[in-house]
């Protein structure tokens, strides 16, 4: 029973990490219909920059900020230089962003080497906390979960309760119509895209502290985030939340019960969805 609760906590904290990544992916797609396979590379790059900063300064907060900003810069550059030109063709978008991810991955390998590296944590995040009921759990995982929930609530408030959020939701439904009402969808996209790559970078630093950063981490985390988005439905923030929880929990139980076959559990939600809801839980019909 105890290990079941522990695994549930593990799943929830992994879900928090996945949500940070998937929310950005799903919103940029919803708004501009751009499939960004380089999203995992932002995560990786943010993680590595955070690693360097954390080692240099010993300040984890600074590492989080630096990782986020580095990924944001990377996202901005790839948006401006190539992504802008591809238009609506998903094939072109995928191949170009895969190209960007290859370049980022290979250059990172050259700079930071091929070994898996763990971000050093500040003292107050290193230990364990005793929860009511006698369960002992790593502080950092709780910190991560809190960040995930905090960002989730914040994003949800912006998305549902502000003018910008309304514009985003409208843009997801019908981009042309929103432009026609005088809202600069392009400017909106720059904001969302910056936010998304920033969150990806931050999640890279957070992920680096408990999953380590290593070459290839960008694809692993991207695929998990994509399954979250497939399950939740493209373009939906609520979908990303629910999807992250489902995938995070299934992954934790899978690793616990059948470590060698843990990737199998990713098939489950996808197969169910393909059969019953091909557009995901919260996906809308115009999202292809």
């Amino acid at each position: 029973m105890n290990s079941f609760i522990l695994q549930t906590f593990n799943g929830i904290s992994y879900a928090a990490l996945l949500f940070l990544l998937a929310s950005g992916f799903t919103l940029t797609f919803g708004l501009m219909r751009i499939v960004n396979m380089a999203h995992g590379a932002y995560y990786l790059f943010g993680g590595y920059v955070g690693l360097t900063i954390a080692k240099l300064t010993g300040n984890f907060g600074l590492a989080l900020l630096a990782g986020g900003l580095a990924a944001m810069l990377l996202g901005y550059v790839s948006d401006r230089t190539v992504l802008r030109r591809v238009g609506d063709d998903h094939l072109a978008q995928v191949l170009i962003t895969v190209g960007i991810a290859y370049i980022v991955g290979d250059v990172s390998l050259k700079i930071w080497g091929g070994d898996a590296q763990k971000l050093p944590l500040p003292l107050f995040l290193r230990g364990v906390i005793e929860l009511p009921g006698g369960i002992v759990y790593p502080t950092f995982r709780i910190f991560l979960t809190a960040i995930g929930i905090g960002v989730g609530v914040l994003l949800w408030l912006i998305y549902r309760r502000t003018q910008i959020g309304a514009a985003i939701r409208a843009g997801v439904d019908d981009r042309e119509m929103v432009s026609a009402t005088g809202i600069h969808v392009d400017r909106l996209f720059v904001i969302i895209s910056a936010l998304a790559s920033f969150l990806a970078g931050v999640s890279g630093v957070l992920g680096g502290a408990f999953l380590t950063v290593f070459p290839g981490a960008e694809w692993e985390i991207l695929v998990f985030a994509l399954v979250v988005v497939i399950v939740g439905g493209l373009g939906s923030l609520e979908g990303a939340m629910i999807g992250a929880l489902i995938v995070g929990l299934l992954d934790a139980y899978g690793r616990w019960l059948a470590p060698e076959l843990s990737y199998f559990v990713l098939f489950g939600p996808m197969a169910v969805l393909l059969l019953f809801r091909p557009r995901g839980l919260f996906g809308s019909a115009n999202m292809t």
Partner: protein
Amino acid sequence: MTQRRKILIVVLLAAALVWPFVGGQYGTSLMTQIFIFGMLALSADLLLGHAGLFSLCHAAFFSVAAYTTAILQVRYQVPTELAAPAGILMGTSLGLLFGLSVRTRGVYFILVTLAMGYVIWGIGYRWASFTGGDSGVTNVPAPSVGGFTLSTMLEYYYFVLAVMLLVMYVYHRLIRSPFGLTLRGIKSGEARMRSLGFSPPRHLYTAFIVSSFMASLAGVLYAYFNKFVNPVSASLHVSFEAVLMALVGGTATILGPFIGAGIILGLRNWVSSFFELHLAVMGLVFIIVVTWAPDGVIGLLKRFIDRRKAGANHG
């Protein structure tokens, strides 16, 4: 078939036959690899070029077939006559399952196939007790059918060439058939085809299975060529590159994927001999091809020939 096309085919065939004597050991090995990956790219292009489905899980069929054949041959000493068909069967069975993804379209199809393909890599990598993990299955013996063993690179080259020609011929017949026409009809207007009484999901599912069969065949050939199979053959990069090869050469053509395989594999071997960041160079190739030459080499050639013809008419 036009006269010019016949000449082209004869010239290419002659070139393929004499190639081992020009290219030497290294050239023969590289060309065998080009044939095998060209078949993989062709299989992905059946969906991409004719049905308009952008699949990112072809490495899964390729590697499952390769693993099955390799494991049967190495661990259970199953003869090639059974191990090779078993590999194709396993890969195609996976296609039956993954083919469910044709219920989705557009981005969902891309993301779902990518995730499914990744799971196969993950299983190859993590399920070490069965797949050999990181190091994979080694020492795959030379294929031996009916007491005849293809033990040298040269023999295997001609065998792969023969299989490839057969695949090309059948593929040619397939895309010229009413079935191929239906696929292209679905690609250009699914709603219209539906209202004409066709069932797009059924046709797309069939195409998916045929495509996975071809990818599995390439995978089995790869297992015997490479003599070992490891998770790299199941990685996303293989799926990405299969699509890129089709695109570089020219999609919806038969020769295109093979030209693309030649360019990509040739370029990679050449670049990696003097430059460490060859994956980054491949990334640049992805970006350059998609941005400036989306119709591939064959598209560029066609444009060049058309322009010359137009010039000649004016003169």
